[in-house]
């Protein structure tokens, strides 16, 4: 009974479709992180132009962390892409 249900689910959500869903999720996360990074750059620039330098170093560190997160998600996208497309 359970095997039947799993077979049905597997036919309804084939690996290609699951791969696409995972990639879409990762893309959404990257987009959100990018928006945060854009806001951070704008706020840092505005603060710097106003002569306030105390937040510049933390902002650069956080921006670097966001870049690393985006890079990790991109590697995930590439891995899912390769795994899904290499199936026979």
């Amino acid at each position, binding site marked *: 009974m359970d095997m039947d249900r799993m077979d049905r689910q597997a036919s309804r959500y084939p690996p290609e479709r699951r791969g*696409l869903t995972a*990639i879409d999720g990762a893309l959404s996360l990257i987009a959100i992180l990018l928006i945060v990074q854009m806001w951070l*750059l704008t706020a840092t620039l505005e603060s710097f132009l106003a002569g306030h330098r105390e937040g510049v170093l933390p902002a650069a560190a956080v921006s*670097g962390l966001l870049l690393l997160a985006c890079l990790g998600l991109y590697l995930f996208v590439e891995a899912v*892409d390769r795994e899904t497309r290499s199936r026979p």
Partner: protein
Amino acid sequence: MKLFRPSSREPLWREEISIFSADERYVNRRQFAKFLVLTSLGMFVGNLWILVRSWLAGRPIYPARQVALAGEVPVGGVKLFRYPGPEDPCILIRRGEDEYAAYSQKCTHLSCAVYYARQEDRLACPCHEGYFSVRDGRVLQGPPQRPLPRVVLRRRGDTLVAVGMSSHPEA
């Protein structure tokens, strides 16, 4: 991303340009992800650039420097000068017979040059319509969040001398 690519069985072109239409969705998404990550790298480089500029600028020093002679500026008039460095424009305003005020001319919003609006008796930024009080430099209206830095003036005989900068409004 060749750095992370395992020694692949497939040639590079086959991964980048698929000959199967069903794979197009994957290729497009992966390339879009790559574009987003490169944009993220650009944002990070921007933050690094600000950090480097901040480090290069160092801490300002405030030498005592003559700004104007006492009678040089008429009442209601202004004189532009640079303090403490040659790239720091400032504005001196004579509001009364013996009433002077001087501020940095860089708007605290996005560094546009402010000017003295005599009729309204306030400092105005023409870029985004920010207004500052001439009395103490605080924000009256508009997008700036911080007061204009005030140039500390001392009178030495017939001359007005700038001796420092202050970011806090003074009543």
